[in-house]
């Protein structure tokens, strides 16, 4: 474990910004923390016996068997970004694992902060939930200075073992000139559950991400949620693919998106391979300005007759009837709009631990503050 003096590294504004993406520097109600600022690992700490958090490089030295996990679910040759991470990944990123049968109460928090102008931050993470364990992870990503350029390129590999569950909640608050390319994949064993929530409501130059989940075990489940808001000059290309192989398994992709002048592409692909599987995809979008752009690209593919697969999509404007209704109760127009939009983004995520739901709620409240 290593810990440097946080006060010297983080400004008051940094600390507040991190809190708004779910990272609590005081570590209240957290099982453990990992913090990367630019290229330096600032903090690796854990209180619980049930979880283990290490810099990935250290974990690779400590555990020989990690070679069976690294670059196993994400292909290092997938694209230019994975290749870049492959060439640099020794530097940064984390290894987090929940030990067999452990169910820590609080989430583990991780954060990636960019402070240096023009920096390319590359990260490689491995996350494992061992058999019968549960791991709740909150990952906050932020850029310290609003005007700075920068890029964040990451690879995350998730392993959900038999009867285990990972809940991964990622909240982004970058800056208008930052380019973001996360590449993640998960593999889920028998009775395993992988739940991923992605929240991006603040300005960013471009985000392109589309996690892939392989439901290999019987009765396994995956749900991918995204909550997106794009102002002008923000480009979000967010998707998800779930390969449903295990018998009786199910996959769900759900997104709520608002374009306030920005461009959003929402992709989803569900592939039914196993027997008696279920798959559902839902995308709801609101477009607030003519300059905005929303594209939804849903795909369903089945290689089996025993499947139940569906998708629905809706893109429209904000309902005037609802705005005027709230105004008739004495609420100003801009406050009525903000209330409706916050409500629209407020997906009730099933089985999400309260702390994670609160972090998402906070991010939504902050995004609409002073709108």
């Amino acid at each position, binding site marked *: 474990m290593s810990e440097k003096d946080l006060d010297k590294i983080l400004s008051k504004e940094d600390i507040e910004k991190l809190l708004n993406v779910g990272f609590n520097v005081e570590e209240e109600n957290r099982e453990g923390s990992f913090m990367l600022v630019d290229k330096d690992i600032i903090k690796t700490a854990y209180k619980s016996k049930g979880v283990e958090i290490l810099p990935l490089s250290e974990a690779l030295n400590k555990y020989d068997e990690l070679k069976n996990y690294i670059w196993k679910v994400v292909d290092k040759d997938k694209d230019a970004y994975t290749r870049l991470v492959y060439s640099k990944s020794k530097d940064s990123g984390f290894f987090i694992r929940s030990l067999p049968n452990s169910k820590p109460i609080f989430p583990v928090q991780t954060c990636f902060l960019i402070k240096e102008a023009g920096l390319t931050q590359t990260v490689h993470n491995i996350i494992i939930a061992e058999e019968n364990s549960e791991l709740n992870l909150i990952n906050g990503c932020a850029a310290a200075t609003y005007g700075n350029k920068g890029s964040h390129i990451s690879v995350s590999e998730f392993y959900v073992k038999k009867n285990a569950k990972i809940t991964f909640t990622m909240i982004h608050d970058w800056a208008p000139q930052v380019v973001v390319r996360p590449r993640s994949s998960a593999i889920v064993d028998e009775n395993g559950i992988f739940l991923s929530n992605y929240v991006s409501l603040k300005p960013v130059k471009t985000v392109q991400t589309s996690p892939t989940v392989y439901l290999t075990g019987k009765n396994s489940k995956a749900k991918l949620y995204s909550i997106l808001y794009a102002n002008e000059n923000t480009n979000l290309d967010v998707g998800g693919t779930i390969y449903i192989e295990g018998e009786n398994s199910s996959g769900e992709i759900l997104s709520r998106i608002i374009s306030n002048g920005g461009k959003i592409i929402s992709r989803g692909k569900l592939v039914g391979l196993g027997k008696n599987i279920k798959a559902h995809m839902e995308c709801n979008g609101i477009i607030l300005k003519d300059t905005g752009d929303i594209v939804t690209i849903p795909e369903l593919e089945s290689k089996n007759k025993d499947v139940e697969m569906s998708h629905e999509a809706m893109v429209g404007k904000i309902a005037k009837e609802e705005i005027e209704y709230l105004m008739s109760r004495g609420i100003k127009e801009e406050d009525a709009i903000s209330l409706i939009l916050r*409500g629209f983004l407020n997906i009730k995520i099933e089985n999400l631990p309260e702390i994670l739901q609160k972090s998402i709620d906070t991010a939504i409240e902050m995004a609409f503050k002073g709108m």
Partner: protein
Amino acid sequence: MEKKEILRIKDLYVEVEGKEILKGIDFSIKEGETIAIFGPNGSGKTTLILTILGYSGYNIKSGEIIFKDRVLNGIPIFERANLGIGVLFQKPPSIKGVNFKKLLNVIKRKDDYFEYIKILNLENLLNRDVNLGFSGGELKRSELIQLVAQNPDFLIFDEPESGVDLENIKIIGKTISTLLDKEKNIRDRKKAGLIITHTGGILDYVEVDKGYVLFDGKIICEGNPHEILRNIKENGFKGCEECLRKI
């Protein structure tokens, strides 16, 4: 002491999507007074309400709406609400993701609405999304609690009895009466009310001072609300046209 006028509608002409709906409406309501407006479907009842509220798409071609000595024409909806106008909508929209309790907290102008949560049997709805999946009776009770929280001086009720079963109509009627100060002595009544109804059923539960008949965008009859209702029941709204000659 003569009561003060709270609302006056002066020679009001309103167009919706280029079509003239209201064709010269005149009436006024005093403090402590409740009026009922009867009229068949399409007579302009809802247009009248939404114009008073300032909804978009309801274009005043001429005439004035004066509330508490202030001309409302052109004033945004929320300001009218804050001046003291509140409405129970016939078909309120639902708002996904917006918590009902949270909305009440945003709109409340007094805290004693809490007791009405119990009276209106709303405990189980408080954590739901506003109006989402509510039954007919639940919608009316949701609208009523919002009015209680808002505490307006002038209350409009659009078809308060529609889609409501007998059990609910008693609670609704009683709450409307309370909101309109009906339990107080006539001299002490301050709240004013406008009830839109086409069946008149609500008159069994709420005391109304005066009735008007709206027909094809015009007020064609005014008088004792019970007499008007009896006349409508016997002769239909067509029968009110006879009355037209009297005013």
